């Protein structure tokens, strides 16, 4: 398993490059992963999505689909793609310290 430094912490990654352990995540790690994903600064709107995803994951055990994100996070599809260009579900999950979403939608 790969280990990489984020925000001064050595963090274990899974095969997709997402955090292997949910509890190693903190806001500074999120910011460092975001920079790697091409998002220089996380805004309040980014955090709304990230926090929603973490909450959903802790309750359901899987990252939410784009449809659920659109309906429940308070951020619509267009904005999701603007906030997390080239794959909102995948990128937001990675920044939120979650595994890659399994669903197709």
């Amino acid at each position, binding site marked *: 398993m790969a280990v990489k430094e984020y925000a001064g912490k050595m963090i274990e990654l899974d095969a997709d490059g997402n955090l292997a352990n949910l509890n190693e995540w903190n806001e500074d790690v999120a910011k460092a992963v975001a920079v790697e994903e091409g998002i220089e600064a996380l805004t309040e709107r980014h955090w709304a999505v990230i926090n929603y995803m973490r909450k959903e994951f802790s309750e359901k055990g899987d990252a939410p689909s784009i449809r659920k994100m659109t309906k429940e996070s308070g951020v619509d*599809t267009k904005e999701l793609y603007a906030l997390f*260009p080239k*794959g909102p579900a995948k990128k937001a999950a990675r920044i939120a310290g979650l595994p890659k979403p399994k669903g*197709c939608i």
Partner: protein
Amino acid sequence: MDEPIKKISIVVSKGSLDGIYPGLIMANGARMEGIEATLFFTFFGLHGVIDKKMDKIKVATVGNPAMCVPSAIGPGLPTWMGAIPGMSWFATGMMKKEMEKLDIPPVREFITMIHDAGCEIYACKATVDMFHLTKKDFCQEVDDIISVGQFYEKSVGSQIIFT
């Protein structure tokens, strides 16, 4: 390592529920992976974007030997039974219920979602003319009515998928 797929163009040519959804799921999935996507609706596939038809898309039960009840591994439905009045309505209801469980939206919502995700949506000019339709007959997400030539122009660098 092989180059990742960057751009796809999906042609939807069939107007049944099982004809339309695969194209929509693939287009949405492409956008989710950061792949550019274009949807081109032709022939009966146009029903997926015709305002008055898109909420009434049904599963084709006639001539479908893979039709099983109550699930895909259940006993096969004798093909002649697919022609019983109401069978398509019934099968559609069953399938929609299962799709909702998987968070697959109804056609109209799905089209909006895919369009908002940045996928371009086009209707085929030859079919539009043949069916005597105009731009007004389509849902607002349809960006334009284009010829097959324009479709190829827009698909430069794309992988084309025909469904």
